[in-house]
């Protein structure tokens, strides 16, 4: 936990279903059902936050700040959501989520065997994602 700037990463499809979940050192154990529920709940609350906006043009929550963590969320134009639970005050997570989005487009969407909206089981995506997270972690250690 001491090294993890990112505790976990979720990817949600445009219908709110969880298609990817990766844990990087959360305390306790979040089982599969809980991660599915958390993803669906985030999808709903992201939509509700748009309805409650006092000014037009709201695109939903992009940062949730809590006492023990921050949650950064990026939604692509096609409605896929990437959100990461990370340390409070962690920097550059927005950029990291966009990099992960690029990995998603390169290694998941270009995979001819991948069915849209289904869970991601692409080995190259896992490998490249791990490299990006590791690189980011090393960068953060140097701060």
């Amino acid at each position, binding site marked *: 936990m001491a090294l993890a700037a990112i505790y976990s990463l979720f990817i949600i499809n445009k219908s709110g279903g969880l298609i990817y979940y990766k844990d990087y050192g959360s*305390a306790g154990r*979040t089982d599969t059902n*809980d991660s599915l529920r958390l993803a669906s709940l985030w999808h709903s609350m992201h939509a509700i*936050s748009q309805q*409650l*906006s006092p000014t037009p043009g709201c695109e*939903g929550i992009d940062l*949730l700040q*809590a006492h023990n963590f921050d949650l950064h969320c990026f939604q692509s134009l096609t409605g896929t959501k990437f959100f990461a639970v990370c340390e409070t005050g962690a920097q550059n997570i927005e950029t990291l989520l966009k990099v992960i989005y690029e990995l998603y487009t390169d290694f998941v969407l270009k995979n001819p065997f991948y069915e849209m909206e289904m869970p991601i089981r692409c080995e190259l995506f896992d490998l490249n994602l791990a490299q990006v997270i590791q690189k980011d972690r090393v960068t953060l250690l140097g701060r």
Partner: protein
Amino acid sequence: MFSFGGGSSLTSVVPDATPAPAAPPGTGTGANAQVLYVFNRGGVCLLYREWHRPLRTLDPTQDQKLMFGLLFSLRSFTAKIDPTTAEKGNLGVPLLPGQGCSFYSFKTNTYKLNFLESPSGIKLILITHPRTGDQRDTLKHIYNLYVEYVVKNPLYAPGTPINRCELFNKHLDQYVKTLI
């Protein structure tokens, strides 16, 4: 757990001479407050005030219910997804004030919602411009105003909307003006 410093104690029985609690330093930075909601622990909207709200998607009652529902769910979500606590209980189980990890703000591209829950379950929600900084001291100050001018008002019935506490409304408007 939140700790609220004691507000200024009342030393005079003359209402107009009541001093307002001192504003926390550095809050006059143009935070651009837009909307304020106050809910009690039962979900009743005690107060709704708006200073700048061009868009109204829902009628006021549905808007307030949706806001409370969002906060309730977000509170449950936050406690469950907390990565630093091993034992979190089941998702969706109602939480006592102060129990589990709680959020204090979230940001979108058009607004920032700042949240404070007191140990008695009073929820204060202040919606501001997205680039405002940490508003926790601001909400504590507003809570102190609530304690001084609403809770200590013997004519106010707990659990009912705050619409006749004129001292509270006056001091709230004065304070919010320092934020805009």
